[in-house]
């Protein structure tokens, strides 16, 4: 592992793994965020829905 | 000849609009489909015409003397929708000539059909110059220039004045007497004798 750093190729390896990390992590976080946002919206709707059902 | 619908249900978008509808319409008979907007009148007509896939149920044609060979029920239908299916840039005569040649089974002559709807002489007028009532009557005349036993009429009298309404009722009566059958979705009574009713939406 040690001889990896300091070579002129290090930049390329780091950047390619970096890009992969950023994109994959970004995708995962994006999916999780939409998941929670939609759970909240669904809960709000269902709560409101239930109230409306009783009213009419 | 009879058109038999057995437990038809249709989904449009995500909603189940028609559920387990069954009826039979035989020659010389008209079925009037009534009901509030959005209860599925147009959906039923489009389903019969074959424009909508059926979730369950089938349409079948009982043709004892095998008058129409093996053509499927939708090929025996004329469908008159809300739109007039005419090209504004072309003249009335060109539009009707196209539809007569395209649909096959020519019935009345174009001039004769236009006379029946009281618009004789407008052959060379571009369709865009006509009023809404005239456009509707021309699209009605399309039903006359090629023969189909089943007429599916969606709000047929929309945009027609009283005189044209009576005139159209006469045409429908002739079609029924010729052994045809009609399924019409409408609010206004069409003034036809031998009719059956199918009411949507109010039963529950």
């Amino acid at each position, binding site marked *: *592992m040690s001889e*990896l750093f300091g*070579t002129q*190729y*290090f930049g*390329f*390896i780091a*950047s*390619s*793994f970096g*890009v*992969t990390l950023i*994109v*994959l992590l970004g*995708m*995962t976080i994006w*999916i*999780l965020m*939409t*998941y929670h946002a*939609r*759970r909240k*919206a*669904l809960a709000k*709707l*269902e709560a*409101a*829905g239930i109230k*409306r*059902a009783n009213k*009419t | 000849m009879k058109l038999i619908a057995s437990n038809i249900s249709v*989904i449009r*978008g*995500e909603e*189940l609009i028609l559920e387990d509808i069954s009826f039979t319409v035989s020659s010389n008979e008209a079925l009037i489909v009534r009901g509030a907007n959005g209860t599925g009148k147009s959906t039923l007509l489009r389903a019969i015409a074959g424009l909508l896939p059926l*979730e*369950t149920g089938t349409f079948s044609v009982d043709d004892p003397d095998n008058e129409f060979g093996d053509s499927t029920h939708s090929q025996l239908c004329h469908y008159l929708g809300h739109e007039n299916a005419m090209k504004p840039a072309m003249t009335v005569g060109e539009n009707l000539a196209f539809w007569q040649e395209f649909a096959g089974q020519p019935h009345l002559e174009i001039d004769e059909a236009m006379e029946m709807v009281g618009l004789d002489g407008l052959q060379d007028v571009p369709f865009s110059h006509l009023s809404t009532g005239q456009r509707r009557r021309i699209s009605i005349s399309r039903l006359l220039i090629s023969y189909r036993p089943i007429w599916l009429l969606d709000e047929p009298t929309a945009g027609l004045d009283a005189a044209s309404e009576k005139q159209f009722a006469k045409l429908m009566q002739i079609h029924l007497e010729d052994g045809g059958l009609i399924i019409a979705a409408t609010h206004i009574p069409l003034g036809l004798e031998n009719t059956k009713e199918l009411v949507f939406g109010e039963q529950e």
Partner: protein
Amino acid sequence: MTIADTQNLPRGLTALANPTRFLALVRVVLPVLTIITIGLLAIGLWLGFSVPDDYQQGRTVRIMFVHVPSVWMAMGAYMVMVSGALGVLVWRHPLADVAARAAAPLGACFTFLGLATGSIWGRPMWGTWWVWDARLTSFLILFIIYLGLIALWNSMEEPAKSARIAAVAILVGAINIPIIKFSVDWFTTLHQPASVLRTDGPKLAPEFLYPLLTMGLAFLFLFLTLHLMAMRNEILRRQIRTLQRKAAREIRSANKAST
């Protein structure tokens, strides 16, 4: 698409037809998949970095451990979309469109990754960031196809009708991919022969193969995990839509009743 018309489905798939049962299944399977993915990624990376340098490419060969799996998953995602499209058109399976629609963004991301890592890998060898070689070019076109399909889904309102139209678009895209591949190969003759995907088996020395295959599996499980989560999101989106429409209708009927 009601559940009624799925009785002609293969046994297993029918069980999945009902969204709520599918969501329950996802809740059980997701943690397991996540652990496997993280485990495989760890092993793959560790193996990848402990392997000696390639005599030709030196250290940059390690980029292959990320580039090749991304390329595999880019194609795998499209395969999932094609089977989703067939599921919609042939079996009218209610979740097929959800699967296809959820796979598209993932496929686009993996294709982008394939392009990015490919051009970074090429930089030291060919001296430029972008080279018009066969594989990179065909993946660039695949990327455009993905974006086109995603734009198509976004511009359509009703999931039920748009499902079948999108399915046709996916299949037409699938028919074109071999033609595009062939024309791009003709157009470019620069790229080194694909070292792993050769018909006579991988040309790579075995010690490179194990990390590569592990990383490949890791990416596969990553795709499966994210795909299930994306499908869950899509189902939630549709449930929200239905509730909103129901709420609107109730208000309409409430107004009518009160006027």
